[in-house]
């Protein structure tokens, strides 16, 4: 029998955002990465186009994160050097781009200087030929100084800079306009604030077509339901024509999953839960698979095995 026609008529396209610049485009990358551009929900190619697959950005930090030993071991000794770590992400783990966090700048941590951070960025840029995502440490005042210097050393490379919030968007806009970078707009698990930050960016004269949206990611089991639904609603709103919500979306899976007990705690703490060396990467991959269904376009990931699993998954569910 015939099945009733059920195609959705989405009216709008998600913005296509390109990160990185080749020599022709004034940069030094061997290739650029483009995300977004779709006219339907994840995978639903029978009713719209999905010109760009989701991509995986390898998590790299200037200081070694407080991660379980088994994760550090899986990444290898290279974790001690942001340049070597980034190289390994690209050459061995097959990441599409690098997500560099300048955690060392945190005033309540190592409090590294802007000059030191800029040096790290410069070295990572030289070490790999893929586009870069560059984040500060999350402290607005410090990031204002750090990101200014870091942005300047990669001027023309068309990086994605994170992140603009209600509290610091003016600074980030000024930096990114001066050096021609793309912006991550961030909101704390709140779709309305997400929209508000985008309005502020637009009012500050920044083109929303150059914005990637980021809802502070929740790890699986720790509020994933909220963020999943926000990503899904934001995507549907964008497809229905709301230009303020039409940006591609980023999920920082690797940055969140390795902070939670379920992914890292030993069997002594969680009896019957099995070896965390296997449970952890499963947790990261599961979380990433969920966010792909919600509408994430850029997944930041850490564990090489989880990265491999999700690369294969992205291919299979296309």
């Amino acid at each position, binding site marked *: 029998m015939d*099945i009733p026609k059920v195609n959705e008529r989405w009216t709008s396209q998600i913005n296509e955002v390109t990160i990185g610049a080749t020599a022709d485009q004034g940069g030094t990358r061997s290739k650029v990465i483009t995300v977004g551009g779709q006219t339907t929900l994840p995978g639903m190619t029978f009713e719209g186009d999905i010109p760009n697959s989701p991509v995986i950005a390898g998590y790299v930090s200037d200081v070694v994160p407080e991660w379980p030993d088994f994760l550090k071991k899986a990444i290898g000794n290279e974790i001690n050097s942001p340049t070597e770590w980034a190289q390994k992400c690209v050459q061995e783990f097959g990441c599409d781009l690098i997500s560099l966090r300048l955690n060392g700048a945190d005033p309540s941590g190592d409090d590294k200087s802007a000059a030191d951070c800029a040096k790290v960025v410069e070295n990572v840029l030289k070490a790999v030929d893929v586009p870069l995502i560059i984040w500060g440490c999350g402290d607005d005042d410090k990031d204002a100084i750090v990101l200014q210097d870091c942005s300047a050393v990669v001027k023309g490379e068309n990086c994605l800079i994170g992140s603009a919030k209600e509290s610091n968007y003016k600074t980030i806009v000024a930096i990114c306009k001066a050096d021609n970078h793309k912006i991550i707009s961030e909101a704390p698990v709140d779709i309305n604030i997400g929209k508000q930050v985008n309005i502020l960016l637009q009012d500050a004269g920044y083109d929303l077509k150059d914005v990637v949206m980021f809802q502070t990611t929740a790890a699986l089991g720790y509020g994933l*339901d909220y963020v*999943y639904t926000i990503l899904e*609603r934001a995507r549907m709103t964008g497809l229905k024509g709301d230009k303020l919500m039409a940006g591609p979306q980023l999920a920082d899976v690797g940055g969140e999953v390795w902070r939670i007990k379920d992914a890292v705690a030993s069997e002594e703490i969680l009896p019957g839960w099995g070896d965390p060396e296997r449970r952890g990467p499963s*947790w990261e*991959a599961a979380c990433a698979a969920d966010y792909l269904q919600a509408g994430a376009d850029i997944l930041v990931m850490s564990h090489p095995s989880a990265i491999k*699993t999700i690369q294969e998954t992205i291919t299979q569910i296309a």
Partner: protein
Amino acid sequence: MALTGMQIYKSLPKTNCKKCGFPTCMAFAMQVAAKQKALADCPEISDDAQSALSDASAPPMKLVKIGASGKEFVFGQETVMFRHEEKFHNPTGVAGKISASLSDEEAAAKIEQINKAVFQRVGEELKVSLCAVGVDCSDPAARAKMAAEKSNVPLILMGSVDSLKAAVEAVKDQKPLIYQADASSIDALAELAAATKAPLAVTAGSLEELADLTKKAKDKGVEEMVLSFNTEKPGDTLRTLTIARRAALKKSCRELGFPAIVDINGATPEVEGALANTFAAKYAGILLVNSVEPCQLLPLLTTIQNIYTDPQKPNTVETKLYEVGQPDENSPVFFTTNFSLTYFSVEGEVERSKIPAYICVVDTEGLGVLNAYAGDKISAEKVVKTLQEQGVADKVKHRKLIIPGYLPIFRAEIEETSEWKEVIIGPELASKIPAFLAENWK
């Protein structure tokens, strides 16, 4: 498609006899439309009107029950495509596969593994819901009986028509899911399902054929069916599942108005895990999986737990005193709200600090710190009362209380009205707790 109150009203006697317990037929019709009452609750309704309406007012996706008394799995009757539109109702079940090629001992061992796959997570029990037993072995009836006896969960029986006939007959009182009928076996298996009143999984190469097959089975008297898919081409399956669900929920396509089962296979256990999570998010009612290892099951069961959470109901944790690590009389004391996201953020960060601590959870009706304060759901008085009720002062020698950074205004009142004489204002964000403790708790 759900009927409106007006459509239902037209078929009622319109006598306002009140026998249904409502003052008017219109009021009753509204209740039926809201699915609060069944048409059968009207004692005066004509048979004609009832049959005309019950077809139209039946839920767009059938509720299917596998198993019998004590060992049951109920799923289906989903109403929306996206959880924010209402909620997802009946959580996806994970079914562990037991291959027919296993020996009796090996099969029994895997059933035992499935029985043991029960976990506690944030106060809820997570477990494998079904045992999927291959019966293409030397004695299908014996294998099915053994599984029925040993398994704590209901059964799916998988095999050829002849094996299934023997196996289902042997355990028919257990109402196993018969897996699975295709175009070649639909007649035989539909008859088996109708005779044993067991639910039937149906598969086909396309949704058009699938709809033909479920119609055929229905005509033979099978009421409860499950649409069956696999992951040979996962992308195609995602699209097909989406179309089937849209057709059922939005276009009242009765032939596709059944929940779905997806047989998950992947090149590696890891890819299988990721695919299982994918289909948990998008529209599988049952996932057939090979691995029942905790490291694969736990993330999957947590995804199901998260996705099937009611988005309109704030998630809360029990209002009590929590211990992180093994705190002693010198350990720090925090208070926070019973909004689970807030609580688990605080708990996670306290854990990360590696300093054992007490966390006193105050009932804020599921609101986070700022919302609770704005909505008058938390006050210094309430905090003091909760601390007393939970006997926190008996647990520690000191009288230092760490309060959320967003509530500095509580400090003076707590110090004045309770024994907690040293109130310390904590960080605004949970993520700053480790640094805060390192600095302030020596």
